[in-house]
C-alpha cells in the first residue's frame, strides 16, 4: 500500500476512511527580502487513525515548517502555500480555512507540543488554570466538571498528587513534569492528531524514556494519531510505526520503521543511519560513515535531485531530472536509483 | 550564504533600506547647515536679534490684507524718515556750533541704515526727502478710507482705488531704497522666507541658528553620555562584584531623581555665576578664556545637566549586554587562551556592543534635542541667539493673534530632525543587530 502518493495517484475509498490527516503536495514558501524562498516542496504523506509516524530529517530539512503548515502557525503575511497544496483533515482542506475556523481545529482536533516545555507554559498562571482555560475554550463543561477533568488529565500523564499540582506554577515543576503538563494540555480536548515537535530533545535520556513511554501509552489508550518530528533516529526506532524521511524540503523516503532501518532505499536514509554511533557493539574508534558536503541552500536548490551532489550513487540522470516519488518494494522513494535492498543488507 | 564581511553586509542592508537612506540624507543636510553655522558663521547671534522687516510678516511672501500692507509700507518709510530726521538734527547741531555741516559724513550716516541687506537709495538726502514726501501724500490719500480691509473687500470702484493707491505707495516706498542685484534680492527673500516675528526678526535665520544649537546639544551630550554610560556599563557588566554594585547604585540614584528637576537645578546652579567665579578664582580667569565667556553664556550648563542624567540609559543597556556577552563561549574561550581582561574587553566584548553604542547615541541625540526645547521654553535653557525652544516660547503671544509662522517653522524643523533620527535609529537597530544577519 502506498502511503505517500503522487498527486495523480488515487486511493481506494476503504483505505481513505482510515486516514485522519492527509498532506497533499504541500508547498510552503516565504516572502523574504531576497524574494520567495521555498522551504517545503511537494510534501505528501498520510496519517492514519491511531498511527505513530515519525517525521525525521536534519535541521533545515523542512520538518518543522511542515508541522507548522499543518497547524497554520506560520506568519500569514509572509507565508505562501502552493495553489495545489492540500492539508486534508478528514477530507476538509485546512489551507482553505479562515483563521477563525483554524482556531477550532487547533487544540481541539489537532494539538501540538513543542521542544521547550518551559516556553510552552505561561509562567504567571497555575497549571490548573492553564489546563482549565483550554477546556473552557473548547468544551461546554461547567467549572466543577472542568476541575475534575483537569485532575483526571494530570493523573493520566502520571503526575503525582494531581490535586496539589493543580495550584502550582510552571517554575515549581521540573522539565520532565512540565513536558507532562504540556502533553496533558494537548490531550485535554481529545484531539484526533497530536503533533510532537522534538518533544524530548531538551530532556535528559532518563526523562526522555519516561516521556516516550507516556506518549506511547496514551496513544494506545486514546487512539490519537501521533506525528513525531525528530532528528533522533533512536527515538524513531524506539517508538514509531512508520517513518517519513525529509531532506532539503522534500520527502525522500517513506516506509515502515523496520523496512527503513533494515533496508533503507534512499541513499540519504542509508547514509543517515550509518552515521550514528551504535551502542553496545564494541565499535570503539571505528570511523563513522559520513555524508560529504552540506545541505544545499534554500536560495540555491538544485533543479534535479537535491541529494545528488552528496550521493555516492550519483549518475548523470540525477543531475538532470528531478526524481518523482515512486513505490519501490513496499515503500515510497524519491530516487532514480534506489539502493538495492538485498545486496545492502546489514 | 553570502560573501563579504559583517560591515559590508550591514552597509548593503543600509543602502537597501529606503527610509534609512532618506532619513540619513535629511540628517546630513541638518548637519551641514549646523557645521556651516558653527564653523563658517553662516548665521550669527547678532543676525538672530536684528530687525529684518516690519513685525509679523507672513512667510513665502503671502498676500496680506490692505491694512497690513499699508502698515508695512509706512514702516519702511518711517525707517528712512527717522534717519533723515537724525540727519537734520546733526546738521542743526553742527550749524549751532558754527561749523559748516559736513554733508558727506551725514550721507554716510544715512547709508549706515540697514534693514537686512536693504540700503537707502543712492541719492542725495534732499532727493530722498522729496520721494518720502510723495509717499506721505499717497498715504494721506489712503487715510481717507476708514477701514481699508472692509473697503477693499467690498469691491467696486473703491477697492480699485485702494489697490491703485497701495501699488503707488509700494512703488514710492521701493524708490526710497537702493535697487538690489539678483543675489541681494534672493538673500532678502530668504531672510523673509518664513516671515518675521513680533519684533521684526527673521524667523528663517533664527530657525537656522537653532539647528546649530540643536545639533551641538545633541552631539555633545550624546557623545558624553554614551561614553560615560558605556564605560560604566562595560565595567559593571564585565567585572561584576563591587564595581557592579557601585554602578548600579549610581544609576539607580540618578534615575530616582526626576529628570527635569535635576536639569533645572543644574541649570540654575550655573545661572547664578557662582560656579564661574569659583573656577575663575582658582584658574586666574583661565576658565573664562578657555570657554570664551561665562558658563551662563555658553551651552555648557545644558551639556552638563543633560549628560549627568542621560548616561543612565546606555549604561543600563550596555551593562545588561555585557553581562550576557561575558557568559558567551567565545569570551570564555578567550579566557582559556589566557588573554588579559582588558584585551577581552576591548577585542571581544566591545566590538559586539558597538551597534548598541550607535543606537543609543541616536536615541540620546533625539532626547537631548527634545529636552533642550522644553528647557528653553521654560526659560532655563539656551539664553543667547535662538533655539527652537526659545522660538516656541516667543511665539506664545503671536499664536494668540493668529500668527503661526514662528512656532510653525520651529516645530517643523525640529520635527524633521527628530523624525529622521527616529527612523534612522529604528533602521540601525534592524541593520546592526548581529542576530539579524
Amino acid at each position: 500500500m502506498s502511503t505517500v502518493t503522487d498527486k495523480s495517484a488515487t486511493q481506494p475509498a476503504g483505505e481513505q476512511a482510515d486516514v485522519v490527516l492527509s498532506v497533499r503536495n504541500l508547498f510552503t514558501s516565504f516572502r523574504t527580502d531576497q524574494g520567495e524562498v521555498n522551504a517545503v516542496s511537494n510534501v505528501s504523506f498520510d496519517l492514519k487513525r491511531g498511527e505513530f509516524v515519525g517525521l525525521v530529517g536534519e535541521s533545515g530539512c523542512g520538518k518543522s515548517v511542515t508541522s507548522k503548515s499543518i497547524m497554520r502557525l506560520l506568519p500569514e503575511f509572509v507565508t505562501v502555500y502552493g495553489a495545489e497544496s492540500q492539508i486534508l483533515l478528514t477530507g476538509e482542506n485546512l489551507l482553505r480555512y479562515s483563521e477563525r475556523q483554524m482556531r477550532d481545529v487547533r487544540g481541539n482536533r489537532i494539538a501540538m507540543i513543542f521542544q521547550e516545555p518551559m516556553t510552552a507554559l505561561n509562567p504567571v498562571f497555575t497549571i490548573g488554570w492553564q489546563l482549565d482555560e483550554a477546556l473552557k475554550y473548547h468544551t461546554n463543561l461547567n467549572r466543577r466538571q472542568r476541575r475534575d477533568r483537569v485532575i483526571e488529565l494530570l493523573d493520566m500523564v502520571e503526575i503525582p498528587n494531581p490535586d496539589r499540582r493543580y495550584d502550582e506554577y510552571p517554575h515549581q515543576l521540573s522539565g520532565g513534569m512540565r513536558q507532562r503538563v504540556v502533553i496533558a494540555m494537548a490531550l485535554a480536548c481529545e484531539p484526533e492528531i497530536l503533533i510532537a515537535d522534538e518533544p524530548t530533545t531538551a530532556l535528559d535520556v532518563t526523562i526522555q524514556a519516561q516521556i516516550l513511554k507516556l506518549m506511547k501509552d496514551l496513544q494506545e489508550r486514546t487512539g490519537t494519531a501521533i506525528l513525531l518530528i525528530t532528528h533522533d533516529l533512536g527515538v524513531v526506532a524506539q517508538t514509531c510505526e512508520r517513518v517519513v524521511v525529509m531532506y532539503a524540503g522534500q520527502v525522500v523516503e517513506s516506509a515502515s520503521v523496520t523496512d527503513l532501518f533494515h533496508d533503507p532505499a534512499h541513499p540519504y536514509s542509508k547514509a543517515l543511519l550509518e552515521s550514528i554511533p551504535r551502542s553496545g557493539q564494541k565499535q570503539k574508534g571505528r570511523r563513522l560513515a559520513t555524508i560529504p558536503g552540506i545541505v544545499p541552500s534554500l536560495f540555491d536548490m538544485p533543479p534535479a535531485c537535491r541529494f545528488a551532489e552528496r550521493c555516492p550513487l550519483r549518475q548523470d540522470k540525477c543531475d538532470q531530472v528531478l526524481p518523482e516519488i515512486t513505490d519501490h518494494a513496499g515503500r515510497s522513494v524519491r530516487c532514480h536509483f534506489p539502493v538495492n535492498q538485498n545486496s545492502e543488507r546489514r | 550564504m553570502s560573501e563579504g564581511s559583517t560591515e559590508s553586509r550591514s552597509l548593503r542592508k543600509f543602502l537597501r533600506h529606503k527610509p534609512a537612506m532618506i532619513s540619513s540624507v535629511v540628517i546630513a543636510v541638518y548637519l551641514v547647515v549646523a557645521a556651516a553655522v558653527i564653523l563658517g558663521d553662516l548665521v550669527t547671534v547678532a543676525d538672530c536679534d536684528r530687525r529684518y522687516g516690519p513685525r509679523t510678516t507672513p512667510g513665502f511672501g503671502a498676500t496680506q490684507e490692505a491694512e497690513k500692507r499699508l502698515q508695512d509700507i509706512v514702516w519702511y518709510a518711517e525707517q528712512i524718515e527717522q534717519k533723515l530726521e537724525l540727519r537734520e538734527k546733526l546738521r542743526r547741531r553742527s550749524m549751532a556750533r558754527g561749523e559748516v555741516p559736513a554733508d558727506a559724513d551725514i550721507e554716510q550716516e544715512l547709508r549706515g541704515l540697514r534693514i537686512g541687506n536693504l540700503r537707502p537709495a543712492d541719492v542725495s538726502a534732499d532727493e530722498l526727502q522729496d520721494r518720502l514726501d510723495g509717499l506721505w501724500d499717497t498715504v494721506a490719500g489712503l487715510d481717507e478710507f476708514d477701514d481699508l480691509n472692509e473697503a477693499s473687500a467690498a469691491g467696486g470702484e473703491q477697492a480699485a482705488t485702494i489697490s491703485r493707491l497701495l501699488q503707488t505707495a509700494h512703488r514710492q516706498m521701493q524708490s526710497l531704497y537702493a535697487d538690489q542685484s539678483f543675489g541681494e534680492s534672493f538673500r532678502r527673500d530668504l531672510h523673509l522666507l518664513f516671515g518675521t516675528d513680533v519684533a521684526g526678526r527673521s524667523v528663517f535665520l533664527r530657525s537656522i541658528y537653532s539647528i546649530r544649537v540643536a545639533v551641538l546639544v545633541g552631539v555633545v551630550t550624546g557623545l558624553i553620555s554614551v561614553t560615560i554610560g558605556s564605560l560604566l556599563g562595560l565595567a559593571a557588566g564585565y567585572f561584576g562584584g563591587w564595581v557592579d554594585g557601585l554602578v548600579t547604585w549610581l544609576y539607580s540614584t540618578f534615575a530616582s531623581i526626576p529628570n527635569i528637576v535635576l536639569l533645572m537645578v543644574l541649570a540654575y546652579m550655573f545661572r547664578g555665576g557662582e560656579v564661574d567665579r569659583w573656577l575663575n578664582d582658582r584658574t586666574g580667569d583661565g576658565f573664562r578664556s578657555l570657554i570664551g565667556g561665562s558658563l551662563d553664556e555658553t551651552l555648557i550648563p545644558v551639556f552638563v545637566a543633560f549628560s549627568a542624567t542621560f548616561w543612565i540609559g546606555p549604561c543600563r543597556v550596555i551593562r545588561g549586554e555585557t553581562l550576557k556577552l561575558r557568559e558567551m563561549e567565545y569570551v570564555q574561550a578567550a579566557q582559556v587562551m589566557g588573554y588579559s581582561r582588558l584585551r577581552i574587553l576591548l577585542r571581544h566584548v566591545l566590538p559586539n556592543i558597538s551597534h548598541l553604542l550607535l543606537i543609543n547615541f541616536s536615541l540620546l541625540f533625539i532626547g537631548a534635542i527634545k529636552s533642550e526645547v522644553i528647557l528653553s521654553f521654560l526659560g532655563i535653557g539656551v539664553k543667547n541667539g535662538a533655539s527652537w525652544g526659545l522660538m516656541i516660547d516667543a511665539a506664545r503671544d503671536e499664536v494668540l493673534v493668529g500668527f503661526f509662522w514662528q512656532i510653525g517653522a520651529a516645530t517643523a524643523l525640529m520635527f524633521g530632525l527628530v523624525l529622521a533620527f527616529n527612523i534612522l535609529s529604528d533602521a540601525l537597530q534592524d541593520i546592526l543587530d548581529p542576530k539579524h544577519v
Partner: protein
Amino acid sequence: MAFIEVDNLVKHFPVHGGVLNRVVAHVQAVNGVSLQIEKGETLGIIGESGCGKSTLGKAMIRLIEPTSGTVRYDGKMTTGLSHSALMPFRRRMQFIFQDPYSSLNPRMTAAQMLAEVIRFHDIVPKSGTDAYIEELLDTVRLRKDAKNRYPHEFSGGQRQRLNIARALAVKPEFIIADEPVSALDVSVQAQILNLLMDLREQFGLTIMFISHDLKVVEHFCDRMVVMYLGTVVERISCDDVYTNAKHPYTQALLRSNPVNDPSERHELYILEGEVPSPRNPPTGCPFVTRCEIAEPRCQTDRPPLEPLGDDQHVACWPVTHPEPAVQSAAPDTTDCV
C-alpha cells in the same frame, strides 16, 4: 602518577537572595570528584544535565575557580596558580566548547581569531603566521578561503571545525571537549567525531570528552566516568560498559537509551522520579532517592568510589559491600517497567 590528576575537586556556587543579597544557599555543582587521565587516553565524562560535568571541565581548566581540591597537570599543581603562572599551562591544555554559534566572536574572521591566538602565545615566528593559519585550517579540513570569512558565513559543522582549529593553534597536549557534537546534526556529528579521532591520532592528544550521549562516548572514548549530582558514581572501560556496569544509575542510563534498531525494540527502562536539587543533595548516596536497591545505610553514608575488578570503580554500598542477607547485589537486569 597519571598525566592529569584531579583530587577531591569541589565547586559550590553561592546562591544570593533576600533584600541584602546574602548567600542563602550553595549549589553543589561538583562535590568531591577525583579522577586520573593517562597520557594519550580519552576519558569520557557522562551524565545528565546538572550533574556537574561541564563545571568539572571548566574548573579543571580554571575557567571557573574551584572551591577546593587540586588538579595536577603532568605532576605540577595548577590550582591556586596566578594568571601569569598559569600561562605556560594555557598552551598545553585547551577547551572545545559546545555551542558552535556562541563560541566564535561574530566580529572576527577566522584568520583574525587564529592570528590573535598565535601571536598572543607566539607559537610561530611572526612571518610564519599566515602559513600556520593555513596549515591549521587544512588540519581541520577547512578550505583556505575560509580565512577571511566571518562566523555567520559558516555552517554549524564548519564553526565547530574552527573551534577545534583554535584549540589546536597553541599545540596543546590535553583537550577538554565539552559536548562538542551535541548541537550538531547527526551527519555533521559523525564528521566532527571522525575529525577528532584523526586529530587524536595525529597529535597524540589526551582528551577529556564531556557528553550526555552514551552512544557517542562509547564510540569515542577509552574509559568513561559516570557522574550523578556532582559526584562520580562509576568509572569503567567503554568496552565493558554493557556487560559489566554495576552502578544502578549507569544501568538505568544504558537501558533508557532508545534502541538502534526497531527489531530490538523493548520497553525502555523507566527510572522513576527526578534528579534532586543540587542545592540540597541527599546526605548519603546522591542516587538514593531513585535507587531500586537502596538500603538504610545508603540514606546516611555516602559510598566511596571503590575499585571493583579490573579497571572499574563503583560508588555503591550494595555493590561494593554486599550485605550477607542480600544474594544478588546488582539489580535484576531484566527488570523493566
